[in-house]
């Protein structure tokens, strides 16, 4: 009897030890990602510093001059444009699902929107390169150019030859990819609005839109912020879809019809071709900056969503 109990205790310790090590592994992996990327970037950090690196527009493998400004610019511009398109559309989708959709259609529409997130990014890339980009360059972009180019200043955004492989196409594809993330979190947040609040608003004669605008959206603010930041993290780190349609050009673009480059695309295209140590180290530095931005954004988003759930 005593030996059985002792054996059970050993097993118990063993099992809890094994499961604990597996959980602890997450911390180990995250720490080693940061440490190893930092160690690999040391050479570039020594050569260019931090502010020197992020403010320099140079990207010249031959003369070994590297800076992150062009890729950071490309990353941020495509991400922000994608958000500008995706946020209103996703809010609309969430409103449709929670307020307007007939009950039997709800799960179907929800699943369909979430399937957009399940399509792998390489498929978005294929579709973008062979179907969407030609469509943009043949029909959409010439039309936009005709309408907007004559407007002073604003027209600058629509100059250049519309080839379809550019910032506008990329941002639209990114916006499709991040829409399901915002839509599903906002939908869940909307559902948390107390019915009493909504009914009081209806009771004093508010229309359905006024209830959404003045009760549900203010009530869901933190959830909406959280979802937008998560979507931003997604867009920053998206690689393959962007690699197909952005053109990988290291320059500060001034028109929506210019090719550009993001951190992820630069990594994907140049990592295996980097022929000098400093070149490779600069690429690792880019990866480290991307990881840092992403981690920070996600931590903020988690904070917002935790506040929502309280």
């Amino acid at each position, binding site marked *: 009897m005593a030996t059985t109990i002792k054996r059970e205790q050993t*097993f*118990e310790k063993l099992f*809890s030890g094994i*499961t*604990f*090590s*597996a*959980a*602890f*592994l*997450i911390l180990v*992996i*995250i720490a*080693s990602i940061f440490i190893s*990327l930092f160690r*690999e970037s040391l050479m570039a950090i020594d050569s260019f510093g931090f502010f020197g690196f992020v403010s320099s527009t140079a990207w010249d493998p031959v003369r070994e001059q590297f800076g992150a400004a062009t890729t950071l610019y490309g990353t941020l511009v495509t991400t922000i444009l994608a958000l500008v398109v995706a946020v209103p*559309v996703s*809010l*609309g*989708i969430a*409103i*449709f*699902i929670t*307020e*307007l959709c007939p009950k039997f259609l709800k*799960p179907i529409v929800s699943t*369909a*929107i979430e399937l*957009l997130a*399940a*399509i*792998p*990014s390489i*498929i978005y*890339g*294929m*579709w973008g390169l*062979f179907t969407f980009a030609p469509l943009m360059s043949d029909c959409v972009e010439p039309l936009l150019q005709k309408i907007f180019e004559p407007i002073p200043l604003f027209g600058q955004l629509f100059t250049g030859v519309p080839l379809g492989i550019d910032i506008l196409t990329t941002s639209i594809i990114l916006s499709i990819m991040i*829409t399901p993330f915002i*839509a599903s979190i906002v939908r869940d947040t909307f559902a948390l609005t107390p019915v009493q609040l909504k009914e009081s608003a209806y009771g004093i004669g508010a*229309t*359905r839109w006024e209830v*959404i*605008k003045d009760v549900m959206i203010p009530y869901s603010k933190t959830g909406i912020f959280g979802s937008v930041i*998560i979507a931003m*993290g997604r867009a*920053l*780190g*998206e690689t*393959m879809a962007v690699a197909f349609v952005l053109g990988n050009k290291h320059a500060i673009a001034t028109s929506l019809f210019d090719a550009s480059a993001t951190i*992820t695309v630069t*990594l*994907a295209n140049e*990592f295996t071709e980097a022929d000098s140590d400093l070149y490779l180290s600069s690429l*690792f530095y880019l*990866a480290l900056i*991307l*990881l840092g931005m*992403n981690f920070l954004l*996600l931590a903020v988003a988690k904070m917002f969503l935790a506040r929502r759930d309280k």
Partner: protein
Amino acid sequence: MNLMSEIGKRKAVNLLSLSLACAAAGLGLFWLIFILADVLRHGIAYITPELFLSEAAPPGMEEGGLKHAFIGQLLITLFAVLIGIPLGILGGTWLAEYGRHHKLGRFISTLSDIMISVPSIVIGTFVYAVFVKPLGHFSGFAGALALAIIMIPVVLRTTEEMMGLVPWEIREAAFALGAPYYKVILQVVYRGAATGIFTGILLAIARIAGETAPLLFTSFNNMFLTTNMNEPMPSLTVTIYQYAMGPYDDWHEMAWAASFVITVFILGLTILGRLIIRWKYKN
């Protein structure tokens, strides 16, 4: 009279906004159908037996296939699953049981959520730094490792959530019979959470099956059939990227066919996973 027009205006704004919301939902569905129909239309025409049965032909030659890429993809995914799933389930077990009210447990749980969103290409650069560079060559193992790292937090979080759904009273009933905690977990909690964990595994496989970026500089690519995990290994996704960017028409056709296969596989798994969840947790 003034009042009436005020009400009319509010009603008009209401109608307009709600119609825009409907339009937004329509737009979302439109993109989904547009993309899927496009992949279907392009891909299905090039699905031939040769695609699965023959290896790559020299560029420009007809009659090549993607057998090497299919086998490479299967092997890389298989090894990733072998590494990632046990670790994810065990870690999730600690979070849901022993670490349930532990501060460290909550912290690890939050960090895994963040890790799920780390760009997959960053994981690729990490594996390159710690595995490919020291060994001096690309390998199938490195690719599997990268995919496993992506998979672990996904499996871990679903396991934690699904085990958390098993009512505490069931554990207490087992404790009352004198069972030690590990037996309660192995024989009672796992049984209750099995369907949920299984679904989590399906969704995690669906997630890594379409990954390209982390394979670019880990398993790299290869035009030949290999089953040696220690060599550079072709995968379906990297092959799609290479073929789509290449100049030959038959490469594009094969890239479409491969895209079709991968899309059907991933959407199938995702929908299956959702149906299982709906069926299991309906009540």
